[in-house]
């Protein structure tokens, strides 16, 4: 039986229905805090950068991993990399269990856009650093001043990237004229029962991999792999997208996803502050602060928007079968993996980077939490302002009757 999503929710289909956006945001921050308590908080692109350095080393170009805490290691033995592998596996298993998995092919143009997006994300992550998950979302709740600064660059980058997407779309749908459209054929419903079985088998495989790691004494690798799986499942089921948060706000003046993002940061900042104030990894996810946060955010923002996902997004979507995400991951590996070779220093060293600024050292614990909440409140007020402009513009258009009267009247062209 096929899942069906009518306007009214149907009881009994909860497992197959998408999760609400807010549930996704809250689940993400809960898992992130738990993972921080277990070992570390979420960050995905330094690992992809390490994979890139490893790729070049295999080609004979010896280059160090750009992020010093992530030295080149075999992926399956590296606990950080296993978060990323877990995200791919989690999204894949969730997509299979709900029969939503599909190879989403791309033409040559889509492949090139994905590669360009990945290359920009790779450069953005080493300049910012790191990606928008670690560099904005986690860094802000971890009381690093680099987090709010990165948001400025990401917003600008998402605006520019979104303009490119809109232009592409305008060119694609411009020639469509429904007045000459023929009646469409009824769509055949094709059951995909095999996907559910494949999902169950993969779920068992994930459990076996966890037990094998435990048996080998690699507890942290096993644990972080499972946390990664949880992130992948949440992103796939809730369709929560950090790119959409930035892109929708700047391009469509729609702040719905960004408001959930801000709420998730607000929920995360107090547990992070409490843990850090008690001496638990106080400098964890505190990054160099300076103009490079904005510049790197800008580059990363353009890249993630045209690639169709942030670091975690392209990992999850690669599990869902998006060819563009596979290419984007490879592009990110190619550019970020070469950074030490190009720049001559690892990330955080040399002329480019400022010093890490941990807010409690300047403002104290209460002052830093207050600062982050003030930042979130200011951001929220700015979103409401942007939405208000959109509402007023829409109302003016409706008053003038632009929306409905501009449509051709009296032509009945059912498409199916």
């Amino acid at each position, binding site marked *: 039986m096929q899942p069906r999503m*009518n*306007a009214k929710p149907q009881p009994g289909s909860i497992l197959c229905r998408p999760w609400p956006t807010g549930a996704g945001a809250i689940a993400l921050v809960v898992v992130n805090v738990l993972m921080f308590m277990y070992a570390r908080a979420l960050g995905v692109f330094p690992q992809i950068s390490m994979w890139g350095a490893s790729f070049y080393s295999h080609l004979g170009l010896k280059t160090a991993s750009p992020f010093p805490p992530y030295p080149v290691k075999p992926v399956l033995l590296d606990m950080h990399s296993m978060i990323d592998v877990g995200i791919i596996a989690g999204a894949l298993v969730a997509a299979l269990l709900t029969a939503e998995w599909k190879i*989403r092919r791309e033409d040559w143009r889509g492949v090139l856009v994905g590669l360009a997006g990945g290359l920009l994300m790779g450069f953005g992550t080493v300049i910012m650093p790191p990606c928008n998950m670690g560099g904005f979302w986690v860094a802000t709740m971890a009381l690093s001043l680099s987090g709010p600064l990165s948001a400025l660059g990401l917003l600008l980058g998402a605006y520019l990237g979104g303009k490119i997407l809109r232009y592409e779309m305008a060119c694609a*749908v411009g020639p469509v004229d429904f007045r000459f459209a023929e009646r469409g054929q009824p769509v*055949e419903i094709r059951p995909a029962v095999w996907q559910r079985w494949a999902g169950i088998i993969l779920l068992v495989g994930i459990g076996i991999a966890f037990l094998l790691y435990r048996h080998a004494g690699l507890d942290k690798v096993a644990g972080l792999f499972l946390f990664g799986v949880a992130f992948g499942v949440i992103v796939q089921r809730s369709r929560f997208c950090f790119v959409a948060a930035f892109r929708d706000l700047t391009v469509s003046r729609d702040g719905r996803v960004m408001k959930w993002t801000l709420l998730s940061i607000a929920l995360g900042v107090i547990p992070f502050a409490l843990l850090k104030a008690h001496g638990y990894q106080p400098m964890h996810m505190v990054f160099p602060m300076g103009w490079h946060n904005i510049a790197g955010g800008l580059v990363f923002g353009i890249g993630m928007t045209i690639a169709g996902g942030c670091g975690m997004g392209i990992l999850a979507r690669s599990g869902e079968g998006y060819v563009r995400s596979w290419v984007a991951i490879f592009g990110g590996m190619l550019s970020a993996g070469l950074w030490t070779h190009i720049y001559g220093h690892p990330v955080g060293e040399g002329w480019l980077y400022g010093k890490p600024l941990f807010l409690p050292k300047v403002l104290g614990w209460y002052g830093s939490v207050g600062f982050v909440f003030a930042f979130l409140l200011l951001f929220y007020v700015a979103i409401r302002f942007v939405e208000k402009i959109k509402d007023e513009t829409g109302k003016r258009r409706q008053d003038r009757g632009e929306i409905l009267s501009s449509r051709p009247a009296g032509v009945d062209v059912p498409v*199916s």
Partner: protein
Amino acid sequence: MCPYPKYAIEPLLDKLPAGSELSLLVDCPAATGDVPRIARERGFAVPDIQQVGSGEWQIKIQG
């Protein structure tokens, strides 16, 4: 592919003749939330969203 359906639907709705029905086939999971929301905001009815295959959905929009 995400997020193209979201950006495609606005110009398509502007062109949709009044009184007709548009069946949109998408393979982007997020579009099953975004596209109906945008259509409803612009005064269109969305009577049905149905999964028609693995990773594919049909969204019916009535003008």
